[in-house]
């Protein structure tokens, strides 16, 4: 197991009309080759910005102001944009939530996949197309010769996501960033896509960062989990630890509020546990711990100073003042 990706104290900010916000604020995490890291959190917590920071695809009003992103030992923030462009798509690939808006509507499926192959492997068009047919067969499409001639609007949501995956896999990347890859899909299609990603991962010894708001998907597909809240990682450990011994009050709240975790409701008064309140606005964060307003165990001290991510046992990191032994 070699360390493929190491992110240290990453901070990505956006300058907006209302002021500067830190969408990703001091994130540290690491990933080994062949592993799947799940990043879970609610909308607006910075999951997608974290992935875009790794790809160096931050929108124009944002920038990375601090930290390192070491990919195979090389800091992606220090290399030129030409070098980064070569890595993007060939060594690090990304798939997105909405396959309809991320595919080009005026290009046939085959041309889109072939484009990536031609760009990175410098192959003539014919060979690139043959390779893309091969790639489509890899992602479980029965009749790839027919599919390469179709336009995105002719495909179902599941098929489009398969085309996206074929495109991402075409240059055998070492790292795949999957940002809510199944959120727009039906459950039976979701199951097939998750199985496909996991098969391809095994086959190519590829590392995957799986971003989702759905803890069910995390439980099924991830080996390690980072829980994000308002731009920060609040807990990070193995999937077993996160589900069986979660410590951070936010992680515990998320898991307890899952309808799947609540026993069958033959009892009508079987209420779900909830986390009160809403995710805070990044423009108006509490002074200390960002979860302070919603936390059931918070004390006055928690509002004084922000907790930092500490390793409480091997491989289990939390950022909470309430853990025994951590004090401010």
């Amino acid at each position, binding site marked *: 197991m070699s360390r493929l990706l190491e992110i240290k104290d990453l901070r990505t900010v956006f300058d907006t009309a209302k002021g500067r916000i830190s969408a990703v604020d001091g994130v540290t995490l690491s990933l080994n080759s062949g592993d799947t890291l799940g990043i879970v959190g*609610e*909308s607006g917590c910075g999951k997608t910005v974290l992935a875009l920071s790794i790809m160096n695809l931050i929108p124009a009003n944002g920038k990375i102001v601090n930290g390192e992103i070491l990919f195979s030992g090389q800091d992606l923030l220090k290399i030129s944009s030409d070098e980064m462009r070569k890595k993007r798509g060939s060594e690090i690939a990304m798939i997105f939530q909405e396959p309809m808006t991320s595919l080009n509507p005026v290009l046939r499926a085959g041309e889109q996949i072939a484009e990536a192959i031609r760009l990175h492997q410098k192959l003539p068009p014919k060979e690139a197309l043959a390779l893309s047919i091969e790639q489509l067969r890899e992602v479980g499409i029965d009749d790839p010769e027919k599919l390469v001639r179709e336009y995105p609007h002719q495909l*179902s949501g*599941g*098929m489009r996501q398969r085309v996206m995956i074929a495109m991402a896999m075409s240059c055998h990347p070492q790292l795949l960033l999957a940002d809510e890859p199944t959120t727009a899909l*039906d*459950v*039976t*299609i*979701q*199951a*097939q896509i998750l*199985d496909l990603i996991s098969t391809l991962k095994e086959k190519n010894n590829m590392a995957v960062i799986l971003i989702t*708001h*759905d*803890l*069910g*998907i995390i*439980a*099924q597909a991830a080996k390690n989990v980072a829980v994000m809240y308002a731009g920060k990682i609040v807990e990070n450990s193995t*999937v*077993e630890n996160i*589900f069986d011994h979660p410590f951070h009050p936010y992680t515990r*709240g*998320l898991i307890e*509020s*899952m*309808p*799947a*975790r*609540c026993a*069958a*409701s*033959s009892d*009508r*008064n*079987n*209420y*779900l*546990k*909830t*986390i*009160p309140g*809403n*995710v805070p606005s990044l423009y108006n964060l509490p002074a200390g711990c960002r979860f302070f307003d919603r936390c059931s165990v918070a004390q006055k001290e928690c509002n004084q100073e922000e907790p930092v991510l500490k390793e409480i046992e091997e491989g289990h990191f939390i950022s909470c003042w309430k853990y025994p032994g951590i004090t401010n």
Partner: protein
Amino acid sequence: MNNYNEINMLQSLVDIKELKKIYSSGGGLFNPKSRSVHAVDNIDLEIYKGETLGLVGESGCGKSTLARLIIRLEKPDAGHIYYKGNNINSFSAAELKSYRSNVQMIFQDPYSSLNPRKSAVSIIREPLTIRKIGDKNKRDEMVMQLMGKVGLSKEQANRYPHEFSGGQRQRIGIARALVLNPELIIADEPVSALDVSIQAQILNLLKELKNDFGLTYLFISHDLNVIRNMSDRVAVMYLGKIVELAANVDIYSTPMHPYTKMLLSAVPSGDPKNKNRILSIKGEARYAGEKGCNFQNRCSFKIEICAQEAPPLKRYDQRRFCACHRGDSI
């Protein structure tokens, strides 16, 4: 509402008989081949007073069309819907007006279902104004009381939808649906646009309101975990048809229809130690052809007759219906 052995004692609120709705597409200049889609295909279904009937199925299976037919936003091509014994498609304008105050809907997307130019209080008050119920003070009093019930504060009354979060907007939508004191609420994917922590808040609120106001719910969702948590009975829909209908416990402990089994296998369990699937999942929801069962192209239990005849929704016992030729043998 746990004992469905006494099902005959339950009072039927909505009774749907052989309901059909067919949409046609194509037939134009660019796509000359015309095609018809059976969005609701011969559905029989009863909603009992005081229950929560969960309706689950994947996108495009006709869940929302069924809801729109019940609320009479669409007219069926065949079949009837009876509300307390009266056929809703032969209602006069006055009857329809009173029907629509008895049957209200909560929509999926709280961002697009609220008028952005109206404040929260006027959105919730509008149904009262239209129906000229009470005077202005009375109306405001009713709205304020309801806002408290759904967890919105007085200070928020004059704010506009964009100033609220998704969960709060859904609370406004719920208050608007409740203001006319309806009997039946059709909730069409009410939590699928919300974050996990907010989803649980809204589900709990819906349960609370059901107890307080004695409501009946038709709860539509694609999420089997949410349906499990909310419903007394569950109807599973596939390509326009109800394929299984049973009490909550039975659907999840002993699913009968191969599609129900597939859906249950596909849902992530939420437990990292339990990743195995009972059933392999293949294919996409697509019409298999003119003849036979809609599910035959994805079914692992297909036999000869499945390609020939569409299985009817058959009663297996007092509280269980399934539309499968091999219902009791698999």
